[in-house]
């Protein structure tokens, strides 16, 4: 009895709430759901910089709210619902694990727009967006291949998910192109976040002879380890990590969500928002390449910048055949480029990488 009345009132209120807010207030309200704390200095930190950029760019036309440290699962569903109930017009959900919750909540609030990062499920009011970080990896791979003297390049991965594997492959392909003798040593931290473990992993790779360390983890621990070792090259990840420039950090991949967040918020304000699938790279500015420092020889820097330009204007794709898979079977024919579906779910190494992907 009690619950049925609650249910009825819920349905009414949900419907009314959404309808009333769609045109009821002047400021556009934008919500952000973060999986980590803003102080993580990496993934969430960069998303929050995007949020601040939206406030900066659109001023008093927008109101932004956020909740940090939201666990995937029911907590995220609750936070999204709460934001929608509080009148958000647009909600960015910034972790892969928010995919199903986003779809669930979006179904209840047809007038609220949702943007889910790194997922693949869409609806009329749910867009997805992600960044082609592998384009940045190609540039890193090239510089790494040119700069290594030991021909051993270390790579710190978090978990063996397609995003990380794609980065390893892209870096490897371009490192091999620059230097056919290059070998990759890959260490999986098996955690999203444990700076001390990242430091250990970096040190282990350096001890085992790597003189270039690439990282798919967000802390500066590898930079510090490289600095201590003295002759090891690193790249910033997620943020520029410019405090370690010009050496060991010689360049970086920067997550830059600001242009996208501003554009999508503007679209909601203008009433032109549509459900899309965005996968932007260097060209659209979603993937930033931090300044290549003078520690990189001038000719290598010029090549890297040329590679960056060709990736940006689309004249070159980071996965262009001929390429084989690790087991020797054909992956891409000569001149063929990988389609987005294959890239999105990539779960194999390309030919030449040693070791197995943990399954």
């Amino acid at each position: 009895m009690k619950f049925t009345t609650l249910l009825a009132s819920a349905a009414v209120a949900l419907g009314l709430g959404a309808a009333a807010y769609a045109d009821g207030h002047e400021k556009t309200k934008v919500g952000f759901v973060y999986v980590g704390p803003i102080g993580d200095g990496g993934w969430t930190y960069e998303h929050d910089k995007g949020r601040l950029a939206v406030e900066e760019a659109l001023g008093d036309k927008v109101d932004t709210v956020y909740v940090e440290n939201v666990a995937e699962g029911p907590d995220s569903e609750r936070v999204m619902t709460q934001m929608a109930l509080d009148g958000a017009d647009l909600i960015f959900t910034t972790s892969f694990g928010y995919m199903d919750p986003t779809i669930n909540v979006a179904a209840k609030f047809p007038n609220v727009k949702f943007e889910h990062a790194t997922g693949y499920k869409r609806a009329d009011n749910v867009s997805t967006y992600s960044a082609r970080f592998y384009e940045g990896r190609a540039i890193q791979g090239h510089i790494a291949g040119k700069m290594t003297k030991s021909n051993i390049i270390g790579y710190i991965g978090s978990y063996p998910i397609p995003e990380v594997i794609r980065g390893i492959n892209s870096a490897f392909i371009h490192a091999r192109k620059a230097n056919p003798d290059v070998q990759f040593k890959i260490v999986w931290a098996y955690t999203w976040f444990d700076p001390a473990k990242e430091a250990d992993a970096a040190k282990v790779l350096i001890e085992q002879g790597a003189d270039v360390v690439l990282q798919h983890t967000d802390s500066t621990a590898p930079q510090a380890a490289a600095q201590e070792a003295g002759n090891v090259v690193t790249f910033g990840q997620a943020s520029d990590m410019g405090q370690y420039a010009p050496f060991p950090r010689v360049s970086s991949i920067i997550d830059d969500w600001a242009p996208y967040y501003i554009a999508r918020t503007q679209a909601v304000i203008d009433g032109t928002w549509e459900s899309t699938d965005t996968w932007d790279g260097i060209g659209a500015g979603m993937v930033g390449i931090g300044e290549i420092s003078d520690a990189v020889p001038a000719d290598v820097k010029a090549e890297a910048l040329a590679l960056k330009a060709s990736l940006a204007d689309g004249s070159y794709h980071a996965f262009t055949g001929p390429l084989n898979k690790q087991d020797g079977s054909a992956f891409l024919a000569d001149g063929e480029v990988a389609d987005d579906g294959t890239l999105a779910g990539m779960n194999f190494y390309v030919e030449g990488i040693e070791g197995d992907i943990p399954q």
Partner: protein
Amino acid sequence: MIRLEKRPQPSRAFAWATPLLAVLATFFFGGLLFAVLGKDPIQSILTIFWQPLFGEFSFFYRPQLLIKGAPLVLIAIGLSLGFRAGIWNIGAEGQYIMGALFGAGVGLAFYPAESALIFPAMVLAGAFGGWIWAMIPAVLKVRFGTNEILVSLMLVYVAEQFLASMSLGLMKNPEGFGFPGSRNLQQYPSAHNAELITGSGMHWGVVFAMIAVIFAYVLLTRHRLGFAVRVTGEAPRAAKFSGVNPGRLILFCLGTSGMLAGLAGLFEVSGPSGQVTIDFNTGYGFTAIIVAFLGRLHPIGIVLAGLLMALTYIGGDIAQSQLGLPAAAIQVFQGMLLFFLLAFDLFTNYRLRTGRTEAA
């Protein structure tokens, strides 16, 4: 001179009054904290405590209290039995994970068959998963005298790695485009722990939490085993003389708490959460330890403590988004609340006397 004097009997009046005093003290000091951070203290506190219960959208938040509170209560009830007997299972988080994996594993194995038997089988598997994971420290303790604190804690980390491995490998959704995480059990009717009444937040986990509370209450007050639990905790030597078998008691306490934690995991993975993912566990197993003690290891107390914790989580998230309070401030606020609840408990068992201190 003020001194403390132990009451011959815990004061009933204070047992009820001290939590209220503690909450008031938290309001005051928490309000100060929020004011220092530049937020309106009264509005902040109203947002955390009032909005979820009586605010405009309380119809949505009240059921969420059950969803958030049920696993805490279910786990804490199990833990409280062991804690009373001086058996320290601090690895409920691991048992929670294993329950979810065993239960979800059974469900996923049957996909896409539909049968009314699948969900009960998952419940059994979930209980078994948590139980067997708790049996490792239990058997090691009984057989070798190994400390259960360390073993149960270490097994949390083992379970977390196992969970990651399952999400990336065996249980990965074959239709998930290579992304980690299992199929969503919410979309598999036979395996879905759906709300029993839509919008009420009542799912089987809530029902089981209620049953566990009643079970624990009856056990502790009426049953011989409950007597054994209490005596062992309060006077281990006396327990031996009264014929309590310590080995069996360890197996029972750890087994029961593991089973309940496993059930909590199963109901979560098949219901509100829906998926086995790398980050499936969110710390319920650890928070439940706080809940158990906050509830003074008493079944009714645990229910209240579980709901209170759930309230601060839910209200805290609302305060974050409405007022821009950082998550860290909410955590500090929760810490304060716990401190005051624990500190004020003093007055339940002791009273203040003024007068000269006796030479002790």
